[in-house]
């Protein structure tokens, strides 16, 4: 599971880490129970502050994607809560992406194909 940080992006680094871990869980690259690196190790490898990684892990924990404990560190949750709906934030993000694609002349099928690819099945 490779994660890349775009320093020129407007998206904060902790959010980028969080997003890529979520995408990793969704694609199956990160499986339930998989151990995540320690805050210090990941911060050192990425060349960022430990607080940034800690914030990303905190966010993932709050959202229910990972669990942390003193003994085992951070792990992907075995039971991730399935809400069965898109959050309002993601809904507006999706709307923005679809709108931009429409303006750019991207055919609807291509968007649907992409959704199928990312969603799987």
């Amino acid at each position, binding site marked *: 599971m*490779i994660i890349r940080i775009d320093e020129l992006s407007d998206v904060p680094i902790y959010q980028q880490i969080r997003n890529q871990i979520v995408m990793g869980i969704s694609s199956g690259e990160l499986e339930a129970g998989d151990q995540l690196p320690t805050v210090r190790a*990941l911060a050192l490898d990425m060349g960022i502050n430990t607080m940034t990684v800690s914030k990303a892990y905190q966010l993932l924990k709050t959202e229910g994607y990972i669990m942390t404990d003193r003994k085992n560190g951070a792990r992907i949750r075995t039971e991730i809560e399935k809400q069965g709906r898109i959050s309002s934030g993601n809904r507006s993000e999706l709307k923005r992406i679809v709108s931009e694609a429409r303006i750019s002349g991207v055919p609807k099928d291509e968007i649907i194909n992409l959704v199928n690819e990312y969603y799987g099945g």
Partner: protein
Amino acid sequence: MSAVFGWIMFLCVASVLLFNLFYMYPRKWKDRKIVLGVKNRKEFKEPGAALQIEKIVGKAHKQALIITGVCFVIAASLLLLRGLIMQTFFWMIFIYIVIFASMIPYMIGHSAVMNIKKSLGIAGGDGTGPVDLKLSGRIHALKPINVIIPNIVGLIPVIVSLLFDLKLISFGESRIAGSFISTIIIATFWLMGLFITLFAFVFDNMKNEVISSDSDVNANYNRAKKKNSADLCIRFIWANVIYTVITSVGLFFRYSELLMIMGLFVYMILMFAAVFVFIHFNKKIEARYIKETEIVTDDDECWIAGMFYYNPKDRRMNVEKRAGVGSTVNFAHPGGKAVGIVGIGSIVFTFLVLVWVGLLESTPISLRVLDSKVICHQLRDDYAIRLNDIVSAEYGDNIMDHTVIRIAGTGMETLLKGRFSVDGVNGCRCFLNPQTKEFIKIVTKDGLIYYVGGETAEETRSVMNAIEK
């Protein structure tokens, strides 16, 4: 002994030159991860660029070959020098020249390859690359027990030597027992082993490189590299232990400087052999994984002249070297800056020491009686012995008939100055030119023993007459 020293230095320089020539200036660059300090990439292997790089690499190899040849001739001519101090002085200067000169084609070639990279439109990266979440902080190849055992084994000769110097144990008639010479030598090598152990852990904790989107490939690649580094450190530590054991046996039963230099010579051969084994496996690992490399983290811009790493965005202090073997520091890191200052400081210090030693060798010693004191003078008054304090004074014909072993101070072919062990008596103060064989043995009221002499026999005799009066 100076001839042995010359040959040791010659072999050291020859090994460094040959290592540089074949490892840093390879003809077959396509299988290498780094080409003259620039990361190898698929764009370089496209016909147009490949031809240009082929020329640059060939030219650098040719230049390095010429420099190596010239350095070999100079090194061979240095073998003709006589006098240990003179030899040390010229060899030290020559080693610095060799290090710099052998890097010139590398720096020129590096600049040329960087220009090709720019002309290909490859934008320079800032060294921040992807991170493999499954690797981060997890890939280790060093088993602590493998470095702990040799260090414990190496501690045995240190303890035995300490007991020997404290005269709690003895190995027959030894003239150096109590001088702590053996303990200092053996403990120094044991501490070097500890230092290498520290490096072993630094290598083992170095940043994992991401070369593929497949975590297994990344894990195997990094594990192989770390295993090779760990093995190098373990071999170094064992070589240290072997040297300390052999040296301690030699020191306990027969003290001979020639024997120690020969031991050092064998030790260095072991070290070079370990480095060559490391290089061999490193090349094999690179050749094996270059085919699977699909991700290249571009940090070429962070390598000044392809050698010195300066990357403020990298929080690590240690990174793998591009030129040579082992690791180097990130000079943007506070620790790296400190290492840089210490490095420059040690070079300056080496030259200052050489100048000081040169002064000591070229300044004649002087022994005279002034204001009811025996004054031993060279650059400054080293000893001033009151005539009233002298209990006994004996005139000796030849200092070479005695066993004089340096404990602390200067021991040169033309000067013995400082604390010495003379005929097994430790703590004697010497101020002699051994080339002038005559000396005076002075014992003072406080129990101190001095062996002093002048630059000439007449000078020594006149002081002896003054003491007798």
